[in-house]
């Protein structure tokens, strides 16, 4: 199973300090809680170690590490074990929190760090594309979110109004 191989590689990258901490998000992350849905890449959120003398964070170290081990750069992704993997530094306080609070799940005997269901749902609401709303609806229908934890998260990250608009648009009058 190739995603299991990717998880092994991610764990090794963390051990080798190529990344500070990683967690799987996006559609592959959602698979840990919901039914599998077709996706063409793996989104991995990472803490990038600050390089001395550089103000901006760079994924150069990640790409160099993986290409030296057979990875092939493809646009913004790098193809590892047959899957395009997109490495994403956190771009919001919500994603930073998701990365810090990610949980470890056993996959074929190896630990895999993945965002919690509540964080995945909140990030979907924050990102706000049509496919993100589809995923959020799947989380709600699947009843895999702790409601009170989710609402507190939305309040903490200024997403309550956006949630109310989402509720009005997609969840009201469901009979």
């Amino acid at each position, binding site marked *: *199973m*190739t*995603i*299991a191989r990717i998880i092994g590689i991610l764990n090794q990258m963390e051990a080798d300090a190529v990344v500070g901490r990683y967690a799987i998000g996006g559609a*592959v992350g959602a*698979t*840990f*809680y*919901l*039914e*599998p*849905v*077709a*996706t*063409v890449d793996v989104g991995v959120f990472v803490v990038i170690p600050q390089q001395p003398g550089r103000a901006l964070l760079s994924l150069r170290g990640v790409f160099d590490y993986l290409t030296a081990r057979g990875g092939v750069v493809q646009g913004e992704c790098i193809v590892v074990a047959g*899957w395009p993997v997109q490495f994403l530094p956190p771009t919001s306080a919500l994603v930073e929190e998701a990365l810090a609070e990610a949980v470890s*799940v*056993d*996959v*074929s005997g190896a630990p895999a760090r993945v965002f919690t269901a509540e964080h995945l749902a909140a990030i979907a609401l924050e990102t706000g594309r049509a496919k993100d709303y589809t995923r959020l609806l799947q989380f709600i*229908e*699947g009843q*895999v979110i702790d409601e009170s934890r989710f609402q507190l998260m939305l309040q903490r990250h200024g997403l309550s109004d956006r949630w109310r608009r989402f509720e009005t648009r997609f969840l009201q009058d469901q009979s």
Partner: protein
Amino acid sequence: MAEIRNEVSTGSVVSANLRRIIDSKRAFRRALAQRPIDQKLALLDELRDRALAIREAAIRQKARVVEERLPD
């Protein structure tokens, strides 16, 4: 009146069947969601292979249509 009664009862049957289909799909998705993570990730591999095959077939089909339309 008999026609209207028939239409209403047929409509109820259709709604009941549709409800059964929706419930059955929901139950199937729930069962899939509850599978072990290793199985679900293996399914992701298969779903991706299938999605790529469909995409490539669509690209080839488009190329064939363009070729057929080009003037001699």
